[in-house]
């Protein structure tokens, strides 16, 4: 499983906008590079990342070779009730990754 760092604030007020950040360690191989022996390194990028809040999908990114190596995404969700913020992703080789953090919502 690939390594990632996520930033989810531990607490937020109900209705507040919460900034989420995720960085995944991944080369995002374009498929256009060659190794030292002149062989093409096959394309392999994190192709889908889904963010779920309390089980429901709120954000999705479909990515390709145009996204920089070690992809980084920063976006918002609205704090509604306490629960889990969960990230799941998969690359072209089928390797999956996951990371999650709790978000406590105060009224």
């Amino acid at each position, binding site marked *: 499983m690939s*390594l*990632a*760092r996520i*930033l989810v604030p531990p607490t937020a007020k109900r209705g507040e906008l919460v900034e989420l*950040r995720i*960085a*995944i*360690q991944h*080369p*995002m191989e374009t498929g256009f590079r060659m190794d030292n022996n002149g062989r093409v390194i096959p394309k392999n990028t994190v192709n889908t990342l889904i963010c779920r809040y309390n089980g429901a999908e709120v954000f999705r990114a479909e990515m390709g070779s145009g996204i*920089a*190596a*070690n992809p*980084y995404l920063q976006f918002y969700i609205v704090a509604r009730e306490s629960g889990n913020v969960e990230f799941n992703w998969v690359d072209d080789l089928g390797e999956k990754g996951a990371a999650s953090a709790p978000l406590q919502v105060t009224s």
Partner: protein
Amino acid sequence: MILRFAFALPWLAAMAAYAAQPFRPEPLKSGLEFSGAEVRALYQDDFSSPAMLWTTRGEKLWNEPAGAAGKSCASCHQDARTGMKGVSVKYPKVDPGTARLTNIEGRINQCRTQHQQTEPLRYESDELLALTAYVGLQSRGQTVSAVIDAQNRRNFERGRDIFYTRQGQMNLACTHCHDRNFGRKLLNDTISQGHGNPYPAYRLEWQTMGSLHRRLRACFFGVRAEMPPAGSQELLDLELFLAWRSQGLKVETPGVRK
């Protein structure tokens, strides 16, 4: 023939005198000061910095048992945040056991083979970069303070000579760019003073983390000279000279560079 040699003599003498008196650039500036806004923004926020993915991995590896001895780094050195604090500012240094000049990468591999009883990590592997960067992180903000003494004087002198010797098809020495022309432009790049204080660092050009030796190899390639292998004696000696030359700068590991 004799005439030609005679012409070269004063020049050689001047070069020798020049090499014998190494100097530090004035005022001493980290490469970050020559970097553009994008690179600085990436470095200044720890979450934004892609280099921190490697230190996160390094922290995991620090606590994972490895090898026949079943020991982790933490088994001997405890919490890196206290045990490794201020350690990297003194490197490279001569290892008392082997009497050889050793950098952090070498020290980690020595621990692996001697104490953990496992294979050394390949230079430039993600694992070695992760551990080196994690150890370096514990000295971030501290002053580079490698000491030149009787034990490492010969290494220092060899490193210094590499720094001042013209090399490759472009016939340039390190000093020509990094002492005499820092702050000036090569295409859209600003020439830095060539310090090692951010390494291992994430370079946009590499799209990954890399060691100081990789960066030095890139410079050798830049002047179209033969690249010494990573971990080689030449690069270790040069690393020591660079550490002396950047005495007073703050450790930036894990840095970000263009």
